[in-house]
């Protein structure tokens, strides 16, 4: 769905998304890293369970909410990708307990 421009040096920053290793470039947001790795869907909605992907990438739409290193509901477009980050995509409604 997305590709790097050919002149851009290789990506060598590694993180995981739902347990799958992906590589990113320093300066990528978590959302950009996911899109570059072909992970378009970042959550399913709490209301209907519909799949969603980032919409605005500038912090206003909140479509890219993911869990990063155990902290839920973080805007993936506002968090820089860091080595070793553990990202989980959103799984809809929160369950009690």
């Amino acid at each position, binding site marked *: *769905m*997305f590709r790097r*421009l050919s002149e851009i040096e290789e990506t060598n920053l590694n993180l995981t998304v739902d347990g799958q290793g992906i590589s990113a470039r320093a*300066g990528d947001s978590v959302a950009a890293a996911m899109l570059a790795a072909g992970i*378009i869907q970042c959550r399913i909605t709490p209301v209907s369970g519909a*799949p969603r992907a*980032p919409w*605005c990438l500038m*912090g206003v739409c909140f479509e890219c909410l993911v869990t990063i290193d155990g902290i839920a509901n973080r805007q993936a*477009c506002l968090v820089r990708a860091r080595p070793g980050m553990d990202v989980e995509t959103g799984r809809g409604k929160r369950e009690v307990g």
Partner: protein
Amino acid sequence: MAAGTLRDNYELAVIGAGPAGLAAATLAARAGLATVVLDEQAAPGGQIWRAVSETPVQRRSVLGADYWAGAARVRDFEASGAQYVPGATVWSLARDREIGVSIAGGSRLLKAQRVIIATGALERPMPIPGWTLPGVMSAGAAQILLKSSGLITRGRTVLAGCGPLLWLLAAQYLRAGGTLAAILDTTAGSTWRSALAHLPGFLLSPYFRKGLPMLLAARRSVRVVAGVRVLRAEGRDAVETVVWQGDDGIEQRLSADILLLHQGVVPNVNLAISVGIEHRWDDDLLCFAPVLDGWGNSSIEGIAIAGDGAGIAGVAAAELRGKLAALAAIRALRPGSTMAGLPDEASIRTQLAADARGRRFIDLLYRPAAAFRIPQGDTIVCRCEEVTARQIVETVALGCSGPNQMKSFLRCGMGPCQGRLCGLTVTELMAQARNVDPQKIGYYRLRPPVKPITLAELAALPKSEAAVAAVVRG
């Protein structure tokens, strides 16, 4: 930068580091004001100069000269002495200019004698059927991916909507070596009539000189479909097909992996409305904009707004309005300041007027059509709570007079985005259903925190003795 390095008090706090925020902070700091810039993004530049000091896109022709002009502005800002705080999410601003800000998971409060809100614009929502499908995103988002990560789309990409950014993105994509399957232009034919009177001003302006080559380049190498009147995205778990109709009413279909939508930008009003700054409906630009004096001062003492958040006027005007707001702050806090190099107010105002003459034509020509602003039926309006146009119109039939009564029925606008992606749609939908002016319908009542923060962050804020006494017994 950790929250701890912030001071408790500043003379000037600027919120946002786009063209207006950078211009204001640079000028104020040079004049000696203790200035802090709180920026939600990771690096200065706002969205238009996004990542300009660190973009991996080093072929300068790709993003163009107007983008690279931002690099000098960022350097000036960095040399000005203003304190820059990236990754700083402002979640509250009070009338006494106390600011609540979250930085790297920690919150704190600070105060400023003057505040300049420079939170800029966001893209107008484009609520067509299927706009929530993965693979459908805003054109601005695609541009951000290009600027900050050097990413362009792969596969069949369709651009749809209207406005200068659509053509700018097309030009940047083509220069970057990307391909576009089609550009579906939704500009309404009728807007030409109102725009025409302003054509001379436009033809003499940089907007024409810079815009025409972009338009021609896109038309040379991409299939451009004008007069699109109906548009939707179809697909199961992601967009697969874009469907449209022109004036002839014949349905046309195109396979697509990515659909990029755009129909102009509108002021990002959440912070300003939450502090109680009066906003009024602008019927030409079809959005709410704050009521300000000629310096950007709002109705609240010491709080000004500069840049597109003060009403959409583009990057050149944003810088000029940033300078005016900074001049007002300098005059208020350093009366009689004779700093050499303070810009001349009259010359700023002359430049602003000239810029506005060139812009008026574009504003009116690209006034988005009602069909793409005011959806019908099962089209989702509130993406967060998945509320449809039909549901909102039904609440009007039940007697709801405005968005604030409606949201208690439907939770519309109460999700994490706090109405940013549905507020204007809801106002216009209810105005149409009630057959009244959008000004009469009004906007969501917004309250702090205007961005979500964790309970732990709130609890960790320093507390006064009075605040503790108010809740602790015994």
